[in-house]
């Protein structure tokens, strides 16, 4: 079944499981349409592999509209590929040329072990949120929502930080595999809002402690995370987290 007229060569990381060694494998992607998403191109390749009795390439994906944060491919040396501000599922083949060779790897970080091929384990992010990424308020008893007035600028800045999709591109982009952008986005969201004030010190301390325990690297202010973030989460969040952390330690 032909879809379009682009022919590409893929070099894809194949790894059976966490324990075995991986290697690059070469695949032909033929008849690709520029309107396909990058993942739809993988669907075509996998369909061809299955019909010739070979094992398809395993990769994570779900919503395919750029919001769930599940897709995670390191394409030609960049998380989510060459186009800025999009996830892999929203990257379209019109960003490539006929005849291109494309190298696809999983996220690389000690804190994100490979499960199979391009799928990695990002449960470390869940544990960081469990350490403090919340407001401790049980269901029920909340007061009327409009009793909490919030300055629009603060609400908008908090929203921009909260837009993080937890995909891990920041970690994959960082030469130190630091998770500072991810952690600081949640710390910032809650630090900017009145609801987050009561626990602000404990929150930043506990989240940073968990981040360190998970084996993420340090931040050396390179800014690759911000440049590669599909949701354009700002480096200012890291600065804000550093202030919060210092403040929490001083008192």
């Amino acid at each position, binding site marked *: 079944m032909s879809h379009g007229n682009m022919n590409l060569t893929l070099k894809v990381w194949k790894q059976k499981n966490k324990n075995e060694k991986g290697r690059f494998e070469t695949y032909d992607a033929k008849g690709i349409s520029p309107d396909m998403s990058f993942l739809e191109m993988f669907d075509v390749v996998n369909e061809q592999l299955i019909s010739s009795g070979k094992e398809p390439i395993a990769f994570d994906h779900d919503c395919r509209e750029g*919001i769930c944060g599940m897709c995670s491919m390191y394409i030609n040396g960049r998380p989510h590929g060459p186009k800025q501000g999009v996830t892999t599922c929203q990257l379209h083949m019109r960003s490539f040329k006929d005849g291109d060779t494309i190298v696809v790897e999983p996220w690389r970080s000690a804190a994100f072990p490979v499960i199979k091929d391009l799928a990695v384990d990002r449960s470390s992010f869940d544990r960081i949120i469990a350490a403090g990424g919340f407001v401790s308020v049980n269901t029920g008893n909340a007061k009327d929502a409009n009793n909490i007035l919030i300055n629009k600028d603060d609400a908008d800045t908090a929203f921009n930080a909260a837009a993080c999709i937890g995909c891990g591109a920041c970690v994959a982009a960082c030469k130190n595999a630091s998770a500072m952008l991810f952690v600081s986005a949640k710390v910032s969201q809650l630090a900017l809002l009145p609801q987050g004030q009561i626990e602000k010190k404990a929150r930043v301390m506990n989240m940073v402690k968990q981040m360190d325990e998970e084996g993420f690297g340090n931040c050396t202010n390179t800014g690759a995370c911000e440049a590669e973030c599909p949701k354009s989460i700002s480096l200012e969040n890291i600065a804000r987290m550093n202030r919060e952390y210092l403040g929490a330690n001083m008192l």
Partner: protein
Amino acid sequence: MASSPKLNSKIPQGELETKWTKYRSTVHLVNPANKRSLEVIVVGSGLAGASAAATLAEMGYKVKVLCFQDSPRRAHSIAAQGGVNAAKNYQNDGDSIYRLFYDTIKGGDYRAREANVHRLAEVSGNIIDQCVAQGVPFAREYGGTLSNRSFGGTQVQRTFYAAGQTGQQLLLGAYSALQRQVGMGAVQLLARHEMMDVVNIDGKCRGIIARDLVSGKLERHFGHAVLLCTGGYGNVFYLSTNAMGSNVTAAWKAHKKGAFFGNPCYTQIHPTCIPVSGDHQSKLTLMSESLRNDGRIWVPKKKDDNRKAIDIPEEERDYYLERRYPAFGNLVPRDVASRAAKERCDAGYGVGSSKMAVYLDFAANTERYGKIQANKLGLHNPSKDEIIKLGKEVVKEKYGNLFDMYKQITGEDPYEVPMRIYPAVHYTMGGLWVDYNLMTTVPGLYALGEANFSDHGANRLGASALMQGLADGYFVIPYTIGDYLSEEIRTKSIPTDNDAFVKAEAEVQERINKLMNIKGSKSVDHFHKRLGKIMWDKCGMARNKEGLTQAISEIQALKAEFWKDVRVTGDANEFNPELEKAHRVADFIELGELMCKDALHRNESCGGHFREEYQTPDGEALRDDDNFAYVAAWEYKSDSNFELHKEELKYDNIKLAQRNYA
């Protein structure tokens, strides 16, 4: 008509307005010491699952949560765009609990339960309060208060939102509450786990069989109660706005173990999605209903008009929704808007290369916003260009992420040219039949959120899915589960070497072996696409007796072929997405047959169920209240054999009427 004796809806007696508050105050309680030894399994971690799990754990129950994704934060609630309804009346536009209740019953074309919908409207305000307390960053006005916008099927502004990412922000709120309980050890989280079957012992649900999707191992989990919060089944159509992994498996397994399936044919086709671009397409992307608030929908007045949108003068445009429904205009409910788009395209007025699209145009409102903004900024006599520039900034703030997504997918800039849109499968109103407590026909087995059938009748209004998911999880199940668990305090945890668990696991293992051993010639996706085409062509936006009858035999043939010729690659004892898909598609095929049977038996049109034989002279859905004012609850008997049970729908507070949005 009397309801089937097998269906006890357990709707409390008394006045509609006080049913829930009275019931809530009299339902049996479980004391804190007993809660600690009662175990609840929650399958699914979307809005319904995460909110239920967090709240039940806060109350002291022992909770286990499963999700098939790598993290609970990825559940498909995350993709909901437009907003969440609540009867707060913050805009002072005459909103009230009664009005939200009325709009929802009417929007659902009078096929939902009054008592459930009223309860939903009652707790809607609490949802907003709870989410704000958690730090959910809703959109705000300059004065610091919460902002609202309009959605379809209503004439008030009651929709709360966070740009075009409301589902994301609400889910992350519920996810944080859930992770807080995980951190405290009150919830055990099992990510990358899929429920494969439920386990019933002596007529009660006592647990599940799950598959660890990384190791491939089967696991047995005991629970005093099991909550299915597993979403809808729109992916039966292959192409839909659902996530790739969204599936019916948990609900379908429950159905085959005794849970009746309610109104399976009620499917929502959303009017504003990005049109299909080619046969490679794996999913469809929604453009939020909130855009209809600020956009105008039109097609050319002339057939096969090949001019660019911008070259078609105002008087040659047909704003067909405004023409047909002047009172609601572009904000008619989804089923009405979808059919109207299909009608224009079928008649030859469609636009774009496929001619299967209509325009959603923001030019008029961009200009209006620009003028308002110029006034706010004190600009006198601004030029048209300045106005448009200011207007675009306002539009960007409201819908920026949606416009970016549209541009990314189509390669066209919606700030400059109108969007092309077409209806697509989006939501399923049908689901597991539940009583007022949200319990299915299997004691101890519950269904919440989109997985149940209860609140939206034959058509859901926009921004009501988020409302229902969170209502069920935060504010309904925490109370109603006491009615059952208070009777279970003497039930000790059942060891999972019990025969029922062993047998259920063996059955799952046998099915896995069968799938792996077929070694046929066609991929799982191949069958899924064929099923989707049958469903879309014959059980989609318009249905008729002949097509549905054909669809049923085609699906039966497809099922036989699937079990003979599917190829599942890899190994069962490893991470194997093909095997996961094979299980899900096998269940979709069986569900597809039931959907067609339900659509065939319902000889009327209502909401999203449009039977071509039953329409008014104007082409509107023609209900038959004398014969069909009931919930169709199907009991699984054996392969392709389902028995219909009816729950009569009584309207004591609202008069049944032909829906009128004109």
